[in-house]
């Protein structure tokens, strides 16, 4: 699972530029499930189980990640850009980025020596930032990249201690790795897996995938903010590394189906409630599909989410896989819904 996660995190898939990761996933799961790609670039998989399911379950993870998109060049060959998905300027400054074709750049910043006292206290506006790709004029920049090209922040996949990892794109390669694992395992019941595109730009893929599948029930595998940091009061931590996957009762886009939430929390498996009404994910699109879809969200607690240095626990990831498998079985058997 760790090696799979490492490979998944090392691939780039900024929303709208997901083909590299999509191809990898299809190659990985096609021996185990029937795969099709829909018009938005979602991978829709049918997994044959030991028995037909009493309820049609869709298990979802999104393949895209946050990143940046080149918008224009300055006369001196610097690249102006916008973010794709939400990224705090604080985690972009003086980091290296890599474009789809391998061109490397650095998000520059006036050095501290030249910054006035008030400038040092304030984070720069996103609009003032620029990428240095090492060329001296606009023409040379255009030879290397084009406007519309996307890039990710470079980040090594590294272990912090034995059980924690630091990487980019744990949101949502965590979910993708679990879902791949569910497809590779033998399943009690038939189910559908969706690897969806465009979550970070408005849960676009999940909307069409859910419409196309018309599931009776959905399980969304995600990553969510863990604020279990030194100095943060208990009530503000949202969820903690090492306590298992976080189960959402409500976030900014979904009031979750209580039957599914209760079944997960009371499963006896390692998990924790996501103790804040914050964020949102594909559940927001899926649970409102057609006449409504009861939805469960299982998320990997992740520190510094949407930054190039997200930190999460491999033990939580394993617990997430176990819980997802159990909840899939229960939901498909019809005993919850």
């Amino acid at each position, binding site marked *: 699972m760790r090696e799979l996660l490492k490979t998944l995190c090392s691939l780039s898939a900024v929303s709208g530029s997901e083909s590299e990761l999509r191809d990898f996933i299809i190659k990985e799961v096609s021996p185990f499930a029937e795969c099709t790609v829909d018009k938005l670039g979602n991978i829709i998989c049918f997994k044959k189980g030991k028995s037909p399911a009493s309820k049609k379950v869709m298990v979802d993870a999104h393949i895209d990640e946050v990143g940046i998109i080149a918008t224009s060049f300055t006369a001196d060959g610097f690249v102006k850009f916008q973010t794709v998905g939400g990224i*705090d300027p*604080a985690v972009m400054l003086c980091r290296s980025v890599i474009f789809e074709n391998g061109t490397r750049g650095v998000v520059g910043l*006036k050095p501290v020596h030249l910054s006035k006292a008030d400038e040092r206290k304030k984070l720069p506006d996103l609009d003032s930032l620029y990428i240095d*790709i*090492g060329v001296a004029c606009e023409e040379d920049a255009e030879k290397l990249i084009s406007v519309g090209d996307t890039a990710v922040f470079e980040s090594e996949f590294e272990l*912090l201690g034995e059980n924690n990892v630091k990487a980019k794109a744990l949101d949502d390669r965590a979910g993708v790795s679990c879902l791949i694992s569910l497809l590779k395992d033998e399943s009690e019941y038939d189910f559908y897996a969706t690897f969806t595109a465009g979550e970070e730009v408005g849960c676009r893929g999940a909307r069409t995938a859910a419409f196309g599948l018309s599931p009776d029930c959905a399980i969304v595998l995600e990553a969510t903010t863990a604020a279990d940091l030194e*100095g943060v009061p208990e009530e503000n931590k949202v969820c903690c590394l090492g306590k298992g996957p976080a189960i959402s009762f409500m976030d900014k886009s979904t009031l979750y189906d209580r039957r599914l939430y209760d079944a997960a929390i009371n499963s006896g498996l390692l998990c924790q409630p996501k103790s804040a009404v914050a964020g949102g994910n594909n559940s927001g699109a899926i649970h409102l599909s057609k006449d409504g879809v009861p939805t469960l969200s299982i998320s990997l607690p992740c520190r*510094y989410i949407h930054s190039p240095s997200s930190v999460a626990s491999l033990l939580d990831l394993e617990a997430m896989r176990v819980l997802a498998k159990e909840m899939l079985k229960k939901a498909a058997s019809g005993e919850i819904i």
Partner: protein
Amino acid sequence: MNLKELTASLTNAVSVGHLRSASDIAKQELSRYAEVSDFGAIGIIGKISNSADKTIMLEAHIDEVGFIVTHVFESGFLKVAAVGGNDGRLLPATPITVHGKSDIPAVFISTPPHLAKKTDEAKSADEIYLDTGLGNAVCGIVSAGDFATYRNSFKSLSGGTVCSKSLDDRAGVACLIEVAKRIHDKPLDCNVIFCLSEQEELGTRGARTAAFSLDCDEAIAIDVSFGDAPDIPATKCGKLSKGAMIGISPVLDRRISTKLLSLAKGNDIPYQTEVMGGATSTDADVISISRTGIPSGLVSIPLRNMHSQCEVADMSDLESVVNLLEAYILSGGAL
């Protein structure tokens, strides 16, 4: 190793406080061409002696900016203080190596959006935590007083530009070693001292004691200076790929600056001038007032994002600096 390989090797190593892997590489490389002594806290000295009356010192600082651990929490988090000038704005989610009993990776925390009250307010290094991900096991590995440095490794950008931590001033160190390589077997009218000094980032301390100890006749400091970027006025910086920046300032000896300018012109070495109204904020400031005074010059390499994990320089500028210094030594200096 060619100049780029040497720069990569030096920047990937560490030199802060008592940690000296970069110093060890520099010492090894320099000793191929010069007689090297290691003066610890002062720095590393290489000498090419020709029994000449005159001695010219070329100086660059080997130390880099970093952090020092001030408190270890059982939760696996650390508090640190900055070692050298540091911009708190660019720290959140930055990978760091903590040099404890063993080297371990860590990241500066970034405040999650639901906890950020004023999202555009930056914190300083001593206001945010480092996350080692270790829990209480961290207490057996890291202690207060241990150092930490940026974890970024040397990478190439397009053209001749490169990006790394600690190009300030390993780029200068690499140039010095390359100069030693080129001149060590040539007839010279002067003795040459290569001084790789410590603690520049804490206030040009190593150069102060080194200059006193070495007592040379003239000196040139090689450091980095500000490179052009969209958020810096063009009048306050040099331009990458436009050559060695020759310093002109009341604290620098004008004869040396003039000699450097004429050598650059005469040898078609790309150069640009850097005029300062007083202190240069480099080791040249203290070398020039060592003992009864050492006439000093300054040659700089334009550098973007100074003191960050992604400093950017153009290798062609390092080449220009090497060519200029080589010409200067072969000419016998300015005095």
